[in-house]
């Protein structure tokens, strides 16, 4: 299956410069894609990378964007604490069951609440990935990567060329 994948972008983010330059690298790598699809991918990539920056910038974050079987995938590999992984699993369990209109409503509520409660982040990163991709988001824990209180995970965001779910 892997041999059928066409890699559009593959990058390891190790340093502050990597994070600063990521946007330009990604925009260049995805330049041939349809404008609307490219925009959605950039929005999702921004959120996935920032999850790593906020929760574990000291660890390398690997990002891949590839096409396979008329779909485009984002794979984000990150090392996160057990607690963060559990939080993400719980969040995905909820938002993967929700419809796009319900997710849009939840996103708005989170923005309003973040302002009312004076929180910096509304916690909408994965919700945005789910809305923009219109697909469920998958997470798998990479076996044999346990270290201290952390583990490596892959987060997969799948988007079709036409932006519609199969």
């Amino acid at each position, binding site marked *: 299956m892997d041999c059928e994948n066409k890699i559009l972008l593959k990058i390891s983010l190790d340093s502050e410069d990597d994070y*600063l*330059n990521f*946007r*330009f690298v990604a925009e260049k790598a995805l330049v041939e894609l349809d*404008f*609307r699809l490219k*925009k*959605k991918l*950039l*929005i999702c990539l*921004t*959120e996935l990378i*920032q999850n790593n*920056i*906020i929760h574990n910038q000291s660890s390398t974050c690997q990002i891949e964007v590839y096409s396979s079987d008329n779909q485009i995938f984002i794979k984000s590999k990150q090392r996160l604490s057990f607690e963060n992984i559990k939080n993400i699993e719980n969040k995905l369990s909820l938002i993967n069951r929700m419809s796009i209109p319900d997710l*849009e409503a939840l996103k*708005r509520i989170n*923005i*309003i609440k*973040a*302002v009312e409660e004076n929180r*910096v*982040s*509304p*916690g*909408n*990163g994965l*919700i*945005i990935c789910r809305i*923009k991709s219109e697909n469920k988001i998958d997470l798998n824990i990479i076996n044999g990567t346990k270290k201290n209180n952390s583990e490596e995970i892959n987060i997969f965001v799948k988007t079709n060329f036409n932006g519609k779910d199969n």
Partner: protein
Amino acid sequence: MEKTINAAAKTPEVIANTITGEISIIGVIIPENPIPFFISLNELIEQCKTDSNSLIINFDLEYFNTGAARYLYEMMKKLKDYPQTTINWHYELDDEDIYESGIEFKELSGLSFNFIVKDQF
């Protein structure tokens, strides 16, 4: 008097004319910590409100992250108390993400928005 905030890798260029009260925000807003950028932007807005009797904000955004969305909403919410505000939301014709974001901010803030399709040339 023209005042600017220079564009950086994760923050947009801001050009403000404090006499006319016109502010243009151009580019991406994707910093992990949006607070420093929005402090500077809010200072410019306050200065425009002081020096001019109207406020025109031109949003010409490529994309922004969820943290920036929270601060954009807060900024617009405050502008609701300043009725002399005009919001111009610029977007490319096929940019449904930015257009829909504009609709969302309009509904969330209760402000009146002018939606302006950007010149395709």
